[in-house]
């Protein structure tokens, strides 16, 4: 097979990988906020539900969660699986899994802000919302950036798990190509793609980090 045909096929897989990556971030970054708020809520039932949810998400393999979500509609509700089911289940599993990880990072960030910051804001008359948006959140973002970076880089690589369920992302494509060509070259190319992708992610993260580097505390 010609090199550019192979590149074209891997490229198509790569587009799916990027889609999965972006949709997961788009869903899990905001969902994590709600999970974190629920986890920190003083309303105990909500707090326990969130603890349980986070514990399951972090304590079981993402691959298993994908399958569970893929088969749940059929076994629980008797809904027939369609060709879209695999993609949908993958997206849902990735979003709710990553939301749990992000929630814990958010929580650690929020809880690391010294009480004095809240007290100073309180005495100056800031409302709860103002205190969070103007004083707490910007400091939290700076503090959690390294941990978020780790998690986002892991997500780039985790997208390859979708091959297990039969989503045609880059890793599945590489596997199929390697089988047909009977050599490892497609894997090498795929590895290169992941690495380059993560280099871009790192450049973006470094840029944000640098932007927030104007102060330390």
């Amino acid at each position, binding site marked *: 097979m010609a090199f550019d045909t192979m590149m074209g096929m891997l490229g198509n897989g790569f587009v799916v990988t990027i889609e999965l990556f972006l949709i997961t971030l788009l869903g899990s970054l905001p969902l994590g906020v709600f999970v974190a708020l629920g986890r920190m809520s003083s309303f105990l039932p909500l707090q326990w539900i969130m603890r349980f949810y986070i514990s399951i998400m972090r304590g079981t393999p993402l691959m298993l969660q994908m399958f569970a979500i893929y088969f749940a509609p059929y076994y629980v509700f008797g809904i027939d699986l369609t060709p879209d089911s695999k993609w949908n289940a993958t997206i849902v599993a990735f979003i709710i899994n990553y939301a749990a990880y992000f929630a814990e990072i958010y929580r650690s960030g929020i809880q690391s802000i*010294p009480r*004095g*910051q809240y*007290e*100073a*804001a*309180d*005495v*100056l*008359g*800031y409302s709860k919302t*103002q205190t969070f948006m*103007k*004083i707490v959140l*910007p*400091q939290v973002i*700076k503090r959690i950036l390294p941990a978020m970076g780790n998690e986002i880089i892991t997500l780039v690589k985790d997208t390859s798990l979708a091959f297990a369920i039969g989503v045609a992302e880059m890793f599945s494509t590489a596997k199929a190509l390697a089988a047909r060509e009977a050599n490892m070259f497609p894997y090498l190319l795929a590895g290169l793609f992941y690495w380059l992708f993560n280099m871009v992610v790192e450049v973006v993260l470094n840029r944000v980090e640098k932007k927030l580097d*104007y*102060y*330390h*505390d």
Partner: protein
Amino acid sequence: MTDSNKPLVTIENVYKSYGSNQVLHGVSLSVSPGEVVAVIGPSGGGKSTLLRCATLLERFDSGTLAYGDLDVAVDRDGTAVYGSKDVIAQAKLRFGLVFQNYNLFPHYTVLKNITDAPISVQKRNRDEVEQQARQLLSRMGLEGNEGKVPCELSGGQQQRVSIARALCMNPDILYFDEPTSALDPELTQEVLRVIRSLAESHMTMVIVTHEMTFARDVADRIVFLDGGSIVEEGPADQVINNPTQQRTREFLLRYEG
């Protein structure tokens, strides 16, 4: 203010406990316009708790609190009942608090630390607020530092920024909780100089401090708080030089170098 003797803040018969630990037992304190009151006393005596109650960071169990004619907490059958959210918000406009460890906002510049609350809480005009902030900075000996962030300043400079931040809200009364305890002697002096000049311009202040000489020189009145009650109270030089209570004498002896 026409009636210059009407207190700016009146705290009456305040009780406060944390669990079974009674921290304030019937403390009363009122401060008139232009008065400077120093609160002294041993560690754990309840000085910070008193300020935290006065600044609404904590709520006391019983007693009353009023800022001028604004009743913030009233007594109902031995229980303190606090006013509505609106009353609390109004009360917060009347006082400022300077913390021991400054609590500046690290991500804001010096200028923004001072101007943000007047602009976004008091909804005042930005130009007017910034002009006032610059005046305050020069009064604090900090001109030229507007664009710096707190971590670029010394502790003494940060504390002076935090004083400017409190003053820019135009409070009636300014509370200080050990404003120099985190500073070495040299930096302590520059902060004390600023507070002294505020006293000279008749800013109403309540200052919790361990600086006895400073308290004697700057305060009009000294309150000695020990074990959650006011043991002795009177004109500054009388309390320092001729205390009437044994406990005050013992406390002061420990501070004589």
